[in-house]
């Protein structure tokens, strides 16, 4: 029996974009992405804006209808027909704690709504107790239940968002940039909350963020995305210390480290130019236009994601 909770095979998510009067071009936001997440594990997903990391998270939960590919939860296929029944097991915490909470609902009702939908209580008293338990779980107090979202700070709102996700007792949560809207001193509080909940409840996370230091801290394994494709997937420490793909290498070197001596001693590998438009993808390897090692082969064929030993997957012809 494998410990795989979620398996994604060749996930594709294309969005039709009008490029002319009668013409549409598919924008390949996610193109042929495969990975799996084990029970109670955190998989980090990093990449720059527009690389498709958020789309992966949303497609997993069928918030978009995937263009292609298969998603298996606990070995069983998840599709548009049966997704409703899986929503109880798979939840999401959103990036912006300001726009993801309904300003006209009390905190109790925000957290209680998933309980209502899935009918997870037998009477009002039980509903109230559950809400209080959830508030306590994320470090808020029961008297907060009658208040409205605008009365809370950013960090507290993010806790409300987490409590809502936890209401249905999920096994897997997609965390989409859950701390990037928060102040540095508050980020650590929320990160610790996520970690405590994982230990306590055995939840698996897909942790999406652009802050590599935080992702490395949170994750057991990290996947790096570039223009809709996975370019590298490895153990978190392995990836941070010995990145293989040229994109991961420059990404790691570009992270500003909060350590002046280290900052002075190391050299940034600065990438030339910008990310190409996903509507005009380069042929072959998407990274070749900014890659120092690009050869003719890179323009001809897309490199597959292959295991370089020890579950370290890299998609590059030259590395």
């Amino acid at each position, binding site marked *: 029996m494998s410990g795989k909770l979620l398996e994604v095979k060749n996930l594709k998510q294309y969005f039709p974009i009008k490029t002319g009067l009668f013409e549409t071009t598919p924008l390949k936001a996610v193109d042929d992405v495969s990975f799996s997440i084990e029970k109670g594990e955190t998989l980090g997903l990093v990449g720059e804006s527009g690389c498709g990391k958020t789309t992966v998270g949303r497609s997993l939960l069928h918030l978009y209808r995937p263009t292609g590919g298969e998603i298996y939860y606990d070995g069983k296929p998840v599709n548009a027909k049966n997704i409703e029944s899986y929503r109880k097991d798979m939840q999401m915490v959103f990036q912006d704690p300001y726009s993801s909470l309904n300003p006209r609902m009390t905190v109790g009702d925000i957290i209680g709504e998933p309980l209502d939908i899935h009918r997870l209580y037998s009477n009002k008293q039980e509903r109230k107790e559950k809400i209080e338990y959830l508030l306590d779980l994320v470090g808020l107090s029961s008297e907060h239940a009658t208040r409205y979202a605008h009365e809370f700070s950013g960090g507290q709102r993010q806790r409300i968002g987490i409590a809502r996700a936890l209401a249905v007792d999920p096994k897997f949560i997609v965390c989409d940039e859950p701390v990037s809207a928060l102040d540095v001193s508050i980020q650590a509080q929320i990160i*610790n909350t996520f970690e405590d909940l994982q230990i306590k409840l055995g939840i698996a996370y897909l942790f999406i963020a*652009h802050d590599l230091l935080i992702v490395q*801290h949170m994750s057991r394994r990290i996947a790096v995305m570039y223009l809709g494709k996975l370019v590298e997937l490895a153990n978190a420490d392995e990836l*941070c210390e010995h990145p293989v793909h040229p994109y991961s290498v420059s990404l790691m070197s*570009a992270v500003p480290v*909060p*350590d*002046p001596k280290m900052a002075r001693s190391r050299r940034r590998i600065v*990438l030339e130019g910008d990310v190409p438009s996903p509507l005009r993808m380069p042929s072959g390897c998407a990274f070749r236009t900014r890659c120092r090692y690009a050869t003719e082969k890179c323009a001809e064929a897309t490199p597959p994601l292959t295991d370089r030993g020890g579950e370290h997957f890299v998609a590059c012809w030259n590395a």
Partner: protein
Amino acid sequence: MKDTLLNVKDLQTAFFTDSGVVRAVNGVSFNLEKGKVLGIVGESGSGKSVTAYSILRILVDPGKVVGGEVFFKGEDVLKYSKREIRSLRGEKISIIFQDPMTSLNPVYTVGNQLMETIMLHTDRNRSEARQRAIEMLTLVGVNDPEKRVKQYPHELSGGMRQRVMIAMALACEPDILIADEPTTALDVTIQAQILELMQELQKKLGMAIIIITHDLGVIADMCDEIIVMYAGRICERGTSDEIFYNPKHEYTKGLLRSIPKLGMGHIRLKPIGGSPVDLLNMPKGCAFASRCDRAMKICLTNQPDEIAIGPEHMAACWMNVKAVYDEAADSGNKQGGDDK
């Protein structure tokens, strides 16, 4: 030989809102020397941007400088007439803003906006200004500058727009460049490009830079000196090494403990408890006392002064006043662990 460019003394800025007076900057003093890079770090609402805006006098209503002095090369900027301050902005001190998407005018071409700055501050004519604009774009690494001057901001990527902003800020060779969260809106690899560019230009042109950010990584990377702000005050100031390796204010220590570090494995983070202070209801003593787990009695009643730790290091924390700390330790109201 110190060559002080900017000398800020006891700067106080307040916002007169309907719900009360918000003292966003509350007695900030610092010096900036020629060719140095100064970092101002703090959380949102700590007053770091307002400090910069006060120096340039670009505060929006209901914000007002209510006290203090800002000397630029010995002259008090706050006493400048409107005409004088206009010739200071952009020419001697310029600023780049966080969001390159909203700080460029969408209905004028990039060249137009660059030329406007140049023609306003120098006696170059149109074609000379155009030439200078192209020169500046080349300097900041914008490819194909002849074509770019004819383009509108929406045709450029975020990184390119920030380069245009930098080109505009540097067009008149200012003595001081203020960069207000210059890379927060950008991706990591683009951030690296912009930081690299700023370092390069700083060496080439010898200007002083003030970088305002909440990102301790960017600060460590770029700055000679660092100011840590909390609730409108400076809580610690020192060289970059002093702040990172020998922090003496509990807030600075807390900040450094709460960020993950590369290669540190999965050591649990130590967050700072509580939430940032409400600037409308500032506590009487140290603003950080309510979140500080080593707060003593005196912290709740008296605002600590800036206490010298070394020649270029100071912290406004009672923990550094030996007499106070010892007394607290004796009377047993010291809550946290002891110093190492």
